[in-house]
């Protein structure tokens, strides 16, 4: 019998450790990403300490790379923060999607768990909930795995940056894309979802081409959500 809805939000040391272990295989690729960031940071003349501090406190790869593009003797503060916000705005949606389970936790835990929310562990957690399994251990444990490997990778890239000369030729730039796609394909598949995904993809592309930079994820996700609101799933009476 599947656990009742009340148990899905449970969070204990065993679940966190299991979540950590489940994200370790992916975290090995995260090290490679982190190393690419560490290398790029040294090239942008960020000090070793600053690069590691950024990975530790910001922990959001795409926005960190974007920050390096703006780095120099002087950095435009507003442009930097707007870029970081736009790229990371998807976290807002991710937090919202987790709320039905997070709301059972006391505030400190609820916001504590979100400290390490990122694409991969969020996707795993949502998948677990969809299968009627507890997911917050994946979110926290997996997040801790990704976070520590991200910092370690950054350090590695700073001191041994030459190790991975060309991550792209090894396909390493596709790790996150392939991972997220596997999550999509592994999820619920029916005509309703197909329509939602199509609308999300098309609006994301339109935003990508015609709207301000980095707005496409939020636009696509909201468009998909609205379709889901218009075409409601068959209401299973309880």
């Amino acid at each position, binding site marked *: 019998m599947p656990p009742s809805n009340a148990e899905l939000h449970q969070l204990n040391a065993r679940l966190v450790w299991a979540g950590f272990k489940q994200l370790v*295989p*992916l975290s090995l690729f995260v090290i490679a990403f982190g190393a690419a960031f560490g290398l790029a940071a040294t090239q942008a003349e*960020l000090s070793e300490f600053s690069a590691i501090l*950024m990975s530790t406190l*910001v922990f959001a790869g795409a926005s960190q790379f974007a920050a390096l593009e703006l780095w120099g*003797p*002087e*950095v*435009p*503060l*507003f442009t*930097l*923060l707007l870029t970081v916000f736009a790229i*990371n*705005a*998807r976290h*807002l*949606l991710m*937090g*919202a*999607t987790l*709320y*039905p389970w997070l*709301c059972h936790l006391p505030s400190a835990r609820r*916001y504590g768990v*979100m400290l390490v*929310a990122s*694409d991969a562990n969020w*996707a795993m957690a949502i998948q677990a909930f969809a299968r009627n399994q507890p997911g917050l251990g994946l979110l926290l444990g997996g997040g801790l795995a990704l976070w520590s490997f991200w910092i370690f990778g950054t350090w590695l890239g700073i001191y041994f940056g030459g190790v991975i000369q060309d991550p*792209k*030729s090894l*396909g390493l730039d*596709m790790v996150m*894309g*392939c991972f997220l*796609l*596997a*999550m*999509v*394909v592994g999820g*619920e598949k029916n005509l309703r*979802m197909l329509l*939602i995904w199509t609308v*999300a*993809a098309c609006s*994301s*592309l339109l935003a*990508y081409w015609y709207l301000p930079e980095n707005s*496409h*994820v*939020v636009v*696509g996700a*909201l468009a*998909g959500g*609205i379709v*889901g*609101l218009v075409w*409601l*799933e068959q*209401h299973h009476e309880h």
Partner: protein
Amino acid sequence: MNIETAGLGTLALILAMAAVTLATRWGGVFVMSFIPVGYRVKQFINAMSGSVLVALLAPMAVDGDNGARLALLTTAVVMLLFKKPLPAIAAGILAAALFRQF
């Protein structure tokens, strides 16, 4: 407003970036705590969670090189056939790596 990266400037910039990112991690949860989660909100959230991923992936597939497209295609096919994420991801990366060698 420009911030000099000499001295404490870098530290201030990194702290500001961290604060903005943290606001995105906490903001969605915070806003939702004012919204009653009923059936319609759940449907919206459920549709949105898949859409976040699709919206991330679409430009990657359309704007990427053929290696990127082949990687995504391979992952999708392997995932449909075997329903196991790790082999699907590995196959996708391998496909991109092999394609880009030639």
